[in-house]
């Protein structure tokens, strides 16, 4: 089935990785803005730090995949120049994407660098001044990163959506779907990183703050998953309430279609419904049951992994399904 795909694994891996990175930096910038007064309490800085450190790496790796996918990888920068030297933007979304990924990479690395422990790495005067510089740069950098991250999250779908000859992609709903999924997988990455980096030191108050930030992330993620499910419903409603190309194209995702099993069992089942109900159970146990928020270690690992698997399957079925379908008839 995949032998004749013009865009294969580098593309859907890029869409997935860029979604995680853009989602993580969006959350990080938002949390850093809100500051210690927000729901995260004193742990806001750790959450922002995790998001900032996670962010740029997947986006840069994914962009590397994109370049690898090209017929002529060494000419990749051609997409950022048009035949007009003083106006390098041209109507192609790919050109726009290049001009957005470059500043995302540059500012993303700077933003991540602003959270690194410079003073610990360089005990001398350099470390101290680097730390001061980083502390001052964090807020301004987060203000740049928030719009850049959202644009990166949206762009992945705009690239696909701009092509009328691919009816499955040519839908504004795809942009909403990918954006919500980017934020959801970004939060999942932060949740996973927070769990893996947490070292209990017997301090009961720190432990309570840690559990609290886990609860806020879980609740936010649950709402995003619910939104994503709603957008999927919209996507199918939109395709069923029309005639022609889109209606035929979406058959590939419906039960019985070539990617139907993967879409419904993999994405909706494992990637969305399962984490949603697990998260709902633990949230309700705290808010309604009045018990302290506490999630077993294995579940706290498996839920973000399931969300990320769902995010990957979403990119996979859309990229592959779009290429299996086209305009109907002649």
């Amino acid at each position, binding site marked *: 089935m995949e032998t004749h795909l013009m865009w294969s694994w580098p593309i859907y891996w890029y869409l997935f990785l860029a979604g995680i990175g853009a989602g993580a930096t969006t959350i990080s910038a938002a949390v850093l803005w809100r500051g210690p007064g927000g729901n995260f309490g004193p742990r806001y800085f750790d959450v922002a730090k995790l998001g900032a450190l996670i962010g740029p790496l997947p986006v840069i790796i994914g962009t590397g995949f994109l370049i690898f996918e090209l*017929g*002529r990888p060494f000419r990749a920068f051609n997409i950022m120049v048009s035949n*007009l030297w003083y106006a390098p933007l041209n109507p192609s979304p*790919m050109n726009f994407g290049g001009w957005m990924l470059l500043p995302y990479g540059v500012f993303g690395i700077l933003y991540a660098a602003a959270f690194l422990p410079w003073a610990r790495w360089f005990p001398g005067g350099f470390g101290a001044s680097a730390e001061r510089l980083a502390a001052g740069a964090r807020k301004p950098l987060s203000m740049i990163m928030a719009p850049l991250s959202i644009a990166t999250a949206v762009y992945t779908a705009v690239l696909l959506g701009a*092509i*009328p000859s691919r009816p499955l992609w040519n839908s504004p709903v795809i942009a909403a779907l990918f954006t919500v999924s980017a934020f959801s997988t970004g939060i999942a990455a932060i949740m996973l990183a927070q769990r893996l980096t947490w070292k209990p030191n017997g301090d009961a108050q720190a432990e309570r703050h840690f559990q609290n930030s886990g609860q806020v992330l879980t609740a936010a993620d649950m709402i995003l998953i619910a939104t994503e499910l709603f957008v999927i419903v919209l996507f199918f409603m939109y395709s069923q309430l029309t005639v022609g190309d889109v209606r035929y194209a979406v058959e590939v995702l419906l039960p019985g279609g070539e990617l139907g099993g993967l879409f419904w069992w993999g994405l909706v089942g494992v990637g969305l419904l399962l984490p949603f109900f697990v998260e709902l159970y633990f949230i309700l146990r705290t808010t309604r049951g009045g018990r302290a928020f506490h999630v077993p270690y294995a579940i706290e690992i498996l839920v973000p992994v399931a969300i990320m698997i769902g995010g990957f399957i979403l990119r996979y079925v859309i990229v592959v399904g779009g290429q299996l379908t086209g305009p*109907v*008839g*002649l």
Partner: protein
Amino acid sequence: MTTLPTGERQAVGKQPHDPSTEQPSGRREFLRTVGGGAVAAAAAAVGVSAGLPGARADVRVETDAEYGMLIDLRRCIGCQACSVACKAEADVPMTVARSWVEYTEKGHYPNVSRTFLPRLCNHCSAPHCVRACPTGATYKRPQDGIVVIDQGICIGCLYCAQACPYSVRFLNPVTRFADKCDLCIHRVSNGVVPSCVNTCQGRARIFGDVNDPESEISQALARNPVNVLRRGMGTEPNVYYIGLDFTDEQTKRPGEYVRVTTHQGNRTRRG
């Protein structure tokens, strides 16, 4: 694909389709004078695609001549001579094709038919591939309307191949550039018809300038019931067919037998 140096590009005046708003070539001439070819081409591209209220979504490219082809399917015998001639002329690698002939079988015995559909790049007047290209490597030549790919710029991202509603574009496995039919640009710019036209056994193909009312193709277009492929995509193709049957596997009637063989590698009409 002929490699064209960037400097050879000239102004591609992009204007809305509505003839009443069509301006004489004043702006084109001005831009040509000011900046030389490449500059004007991109200026027009950027300027127009920013959006004219009420204009069509697809941007029509006006050209001096508009080379096109009329294929009389009643005369086509499906011999694939055009496919072979194209392979030889353009040195197209195995597994990909610039030109091919699709077979459509339909009906139940004894009421059956097999029809043939020769395919090539439509050299559209409003090409989706040109709008999709992030580098400006593919463009419609202003002098003859041929949609070409500048191999000095193309990066092989295949966004154009995704954007083409006719699946005529592919990644050339040898050169690693996007590739497709170029209407035998090396032949037609020297006044010779394309290789597929030259070789056609049934004389099914007429090549010429559809902008010139005196040309053989324009007269044949005016005298015959003609149609184009996927008109609804808004591409305004310049390859016309006489006797086109739109029968397809996706849109057949219940119980009807239809089998389409594209002869285009393992690509289907949808992919």
